[in-house]
């Protein structure tokens, strides 16, 4: 008969240096929970001094067209109508047509002179605060696979979203607000729905919590209208008597204790959540800045403003999604982009400017990205198909460089060629900015310590050039 190492805590502590992974911290905290102290969502120290403590991800489903927004290509414009000199990998491979230059003008923005499309007048105003990466590449021209890659580091399903990894790594700054909030489009779910913010094989407490922008933000948050406050108070008192009697039989069981505490937490959330989202407390100037006064921008702007309030209130990770996959411009590319930019340009830029004026930008990473880019050739008459070889994204704040353009694509913006950044590298760098080492942020899964970047296979590396 074997002897089990009974003092597991001491055992783990002895080998802590050896394990060095956050899984240990997590397990120890689970044990701490078992001893009645702390919770797995408690704030945890980073691996090293973090530059940022929060993230706001403005996710642009569908694959925004880098060639019309961020990556000017005079050569492409010149050769509009000619065949692409080579083979193009497309999603709808039978509909590939000739080269199609952007109909939009580009101009130099800010002191840095970053070239941006005329469709982005507001983003241009904050160019000096942005790191623009023009040399992104991903692995699939299929939406779902590319979404899974940019959200969870793998084209395969079932892995945790990177927001879930961040919360697992750093914990929550507030007990009465979810650490990872999703502000979904009231117009409908994004493509792939809840999979975009799943915790995968991490415990479910690390998954994103969707907040609705209208009505009650969290499911079951509000006391039903026919339950009177005094009656509810008495109910809760009775419940705590019942639970106390039950706990007497299991005084050491912290899960039972946690469940009791959760009723208090739930009550606190009934005020803390609406307060964090309450944009009525914002000045007229701020509301205007986000475009709340105009029908085009009001809805998206409201959620950008909410994102700022949430970060201000200690929410670690906020994601904004659009309904469906609007940037998927298979036809009428130019026309659709006009509409999409009219909706998103001003509020996105306002978020950067507003965070900056409040001194929050240094500690908050804002990321604007889709899942892939679009082709330099037309699909049918006036569309653009998916492109996995090149796309652009921008980052602001949280220790990223300001007024900086990283990498370049070929003459057609078809392939990233200089300083290519793969999605795995992006993830490694984002974690790094948050003080987390992507090789050490691991969780035991299927017999190994799994990581966001799966660096042993992907050879992911941080991109120090992106950081100030």
């Amino acid at each position, binding site marked *: *008969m*074997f002897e*089990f*190492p*009974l003092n*597991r805590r001491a055992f783990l502590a002895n*080998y802590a240096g*050896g*394990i*060095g992974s956050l899984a240990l911290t997590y397990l120890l905290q689970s044990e701490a929970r078992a*001893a009645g102290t702390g919770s797995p969502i408690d704030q945890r120290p980073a691996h090293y001094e973090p530059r940022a403590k929060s993230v706001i991800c403005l996710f642009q489903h569908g694959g925004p067209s880098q060639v019309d927004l961020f990556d000017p290509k005079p050569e492409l414009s010149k050769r509009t109508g000619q065949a692409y000199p080579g083979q193009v990998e*497309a*999603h*709808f491979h039978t509909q590939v047509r000739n080269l199609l230059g952007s109909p939009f003008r580009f101009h130099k923005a800010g002191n840095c002179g970053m070239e941006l499309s005329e469709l982005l007048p507001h983003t241009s105003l904050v160019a000096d605060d942005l790191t623009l990466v023009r040399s992104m590449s991903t692995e699939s*021209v299929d939406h*779902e*696979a590319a979404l899974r890659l940019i959200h969870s580091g793998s084209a395969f*399903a*079932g892995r945790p979203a990177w927001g879930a990894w961040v919360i697992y790594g750093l914990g929550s700054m507030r007990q009465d607000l979810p650490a990872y909030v999703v502000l979904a489009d009231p117009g409908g779910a994004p493509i792939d729905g*809840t999979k975009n913010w*799943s915790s995968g094989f991490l*415990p*479910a*407490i690390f998954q994103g919590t969707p907040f*609705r922008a209208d*009505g009650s933000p*969290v*499911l*079951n948050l509000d006391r*039903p*209208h*026919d339950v*009177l406050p005094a*009656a509810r108070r*008495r*109910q809760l*008192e*009775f*419940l705590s*008597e*019942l639970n106390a*009697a*039950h*706990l007497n*039989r*299991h005084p*050491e069981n912290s*899960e*039972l204790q946690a*469940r*009791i505490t*959760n009723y208090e*937490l*739930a009550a606190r959330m009934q005020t803390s959540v609406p307060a964090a989202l309450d944009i009525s407390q914002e000045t007229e100037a701020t509301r205007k800045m986000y475009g709340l006064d105009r029908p085009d921008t009001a809805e998206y702007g409201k959620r950008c403003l909410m994102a700022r309030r949430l970060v201000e209130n200690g929410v670690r990770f906020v994601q904004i999604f659009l309904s469906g996959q609007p940037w998927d411009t298979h036809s009428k590319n130019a026309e659709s982009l006009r509409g999409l930019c009219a909706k998103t340009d001003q509020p996105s830029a306002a978020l950067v400017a507003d965070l900056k004026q409040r001194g929050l930008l240094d500690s908050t990473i804002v990321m604007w990205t889709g899942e892939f880019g679009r082709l330099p050739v037309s699909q049918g008459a006036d569309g653009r198909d998916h492109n996995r070889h090149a796309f652009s994204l921008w980052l602001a704040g949280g220790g990223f460089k300001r007024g900086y353009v990283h990498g370049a694509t070929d003459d057609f913006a078809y392939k990233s060629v200089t300083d290519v950044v793969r999605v795995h590298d992006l993830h490694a760098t984002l974690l790094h900015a948050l003080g987390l080492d992507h090789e050490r942020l*691991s969780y*035991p899964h*299927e*017999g*190994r310590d799994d990581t966001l970047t799966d660096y*042993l296979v992907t050879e992911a590396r941080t991109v120090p050039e992106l950081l100030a």
Partner: protein
Amino acid sequence: MRGWRLDSLFRRNAAVKPPRLGAISSSRRITSSLALLATIWLSLLSPAPMCAEDGADAPAQQHWAFRQLVRPAIPHVQQADLVRTPVDNFIEAALEKRGLTLSPPADRETLFRRLCFDLVGLPPSPEDAATFALDASPDAWARAVNRLLASPHYGERWGKYWLDVAGYADSNGYFNADSDRPLAYRYRDYVLRAFNDDKPFDRFVVEQLAGDELSGYTTNSPVDEAVIELLTATHFLRNAQDGTSESDGNPDELRTDRATVLEGAVQITMNSLLGLTIQCCRCHDHKFEPITQREYYQLQAVFYPAFPVFDEKAWIKPRDRVAHVVTPGEMERWEAETRLLDDEIAGLKRDFANWTRERRPPSMVRFSDDFDAPGASLAANWSSRAPGDDAPAGTPELRLDASQPPGALVRDGALCLVESGAAGDRWLATREKFDWTPAQPGEWIQATFDLKADRLDSAATPAARIGFLIAAHDFDDNSPIGGGNVLIDGNPAGGAAVHLDYPGDDSKPVGDLGSSHYVPGHNYGVRVTNEGGGKFRLEQLVDGIPEEKPVTLSEADLPDGGFAFEFCCGRSFIVDSVEVMAMTGLDPDGSAAHREFADAFQSRQKTLRKALKQKQQQRREKPGGIAYVTDVLANPPAVHVLERGNYAAPGSEVQPAGLAMLSPSNASLAVEQLPAGAKTTGRRLALARWLTRPNSPASSLLARVIVNRVWQHHFGMGLVATPDNFGVSGSAPSHPELFEFLADELMRSGWSLKSLHRLILQSAVYAQSSALRSEAFAADPDNRLLWRFRTSRLDAEAIRDAMLTLSGELDDRLYGPYTPTSRQDDGSVIVAENAEGVRRRGVYLQHRRTQINTMAALFDSPVIVTNCPVRSNSTIPLQSLALLNSEFVRTRASAFSSRLEREESADPRRRIELSFRLAIGRAPDAAERAAAERFLNEQTAFYVEKSQLAVAGNQVKASQQGIAMSPETGAERAWHDFCQMLLAGNAFLYVD
């Protein structure tokens, strides 16, 4: 302890970099230095078995899980009086080594509640609990165990555990569409029945892997229940996600989508049966287990004939991978039944139509053409221009009485609309125009026609739409009158799209009408009803009955105009009996005939609707659809290793084979020659035989893995804490000898899981109290040595099922299609009140991957991606909010309190006692009773006081706030509040 990656040991010192494991992958064994470290590491966790191995270069076969099973001796214990079964010897011996001992048994009420939730997932009834508590006979426990094991609810509980492991879901996943798997439930039922029947586990495995091959089924072979069961079992292999019904994109992507299905089948098979994770071997040799990339593709070769990834033509999409297999006579019975129903429905409709024709006042018929007048020209009633047009509609002009397209002619007493497919709209309109806006609210006008055929001859393409117009007045858009030209574009796939002012640039869609499919053999049309306030309701009529989903129009949308058929886009079809009928209050002669008819008409219509609905509900799905798996290539091509997992880089050829580490001498599969004419290769059957061959390392591992799962569900944690990883990198068993003993017992019993349950449940270990013993807690806080029973929360299904049981609402019907869930505007997923089976057990709820019932998801019901060997156990505030505020819990509390009142109306004290017995399986103790009485008194008084204030004040406002209006309802509400808190309490949510 979860599995750790071996190289984590290297991180103790940051200066020592872990070796790049990829660099050593050419060796299929773990290199000696790593293996040494692994051994040290693992020996710290489980010294005995690992130290028995000789360290470096230990052959894989010596890993405890990969060895052939050896039955251990049963250890002696000092406290022999505690022992009830050999299970106790092993556990007690380990405890005694640490100076500990088993806890005393729990009280009988606690034990019985524990046993009921454990075996059937439902709370005991107070009567059963009382009977058990008073039964002093020595075999009372054994009888209780046997009775519960014999209950069909046992399969619902334990079958669900297998479904989690097998990755069961009611949808295809993969893509956002997450399309339906309407027949998956038959596999679910197969699993539930297999558990209920105590099907030997080895047989269960063989059937799931190769039931089709066992059955010898071919399309024309005779069918009996056994064949159906065997085919159904193979759905196991298609539990993985499968997006190939929705795939689009370039050929590489389509191939990836197909490959994902095969990879999923291999992954689920190896993980659920052998507790191994091997998908990393798709690209390279396993880094931590003795499994090579080549072996992975040998396994793929077993399943390849069923899932031919590289043969797009042979590939079968999930929606087509269905056989209609029925026992003799079943299909005939269904056809006869369906025919009878069809006849009855047609008869009801015919009677209604005849009655209408006979009884309606002639003045109501504004237009009628049955195309039966011999020799009459179409031009008498019809025209290619609308009543208000100057020029004919469209170019070239429509030819009347002509069969060349575009044209219209009468043939065999019906009107043929002959379309060319050339560009441009045209129409055939009535010469007469009608008033489409009846003057008085309630009055209506309708236009209808019989659709005889959706093409001119059987060889032609069916019309994509059946288009017709009302208020057709102005094709060329020259008229000063706006609006009109209301196009109703009837869809064979259901419903009709409505466009105003058609055709032209100013045409606009205004919505969709109805839901019925436009198919020949029915009468279609629309009715316009004056709703008052200048609004006109446009409804679709099918066989004279208005359908739901109307569209609202204004008076300006409906100028006077004709009725017309649309010619467009090659849509030729045949119609008959065109009729325009109006029900207006005023008769031409001033009598009440119209009104009388209209009243009778409406009442008959209502009766007919009800009768039709009843008939439709009697309809049964076509029987026998089985979503199954079989080889689609009887002579499959060679299967290759894919270099680095790249689909475009085939490497060396492989043959189907098992895993070398489990077949020391020979892993190749003995693929039997199947009978001549067989459509399958026999590969899967050979793999199944290899897995279950007695006295082999493979069947030893198979037994260990399922024993661990059974233990896990009885005790809250497996003897191996990583049920999905029995490899070198997984965790070692906490009680290795007990483990071997149980696996051996399972095989000796003929793989009977119910025997295994009995062995475990009869033990003193299982009967232990969960109470705290501080000296034992100090020594083993995690209770890995099992010095007490582990308190655990009910899982998602048990919470639902228990709430429905004690509220007296549970619909405990067994088996059948899933109960649908639906997503609400607020994002939650619920079971709608009008859903069939709304109160059924959780196992029957639709488990769509992207749409998990919210209440279940909150309590850790998994989103199935591949499979789920262990559910997480979360404790989050959202659960508290759901228990306090969700509609589901509040409704259960209401039903619970109604039940209490029904069953114990007189005595509040006894009612309190009953409520506790129902919710937590025992009577309240003195303190709980006092708290309950105090709460009920205070809460009742509060509501009564509120109601008196309300009577004095604003009653309307008071009732809006839901305030009780009398002492009786005050008490009622207090009981409701009380019941809900019982459901929210830990004593209900946890099992001791």
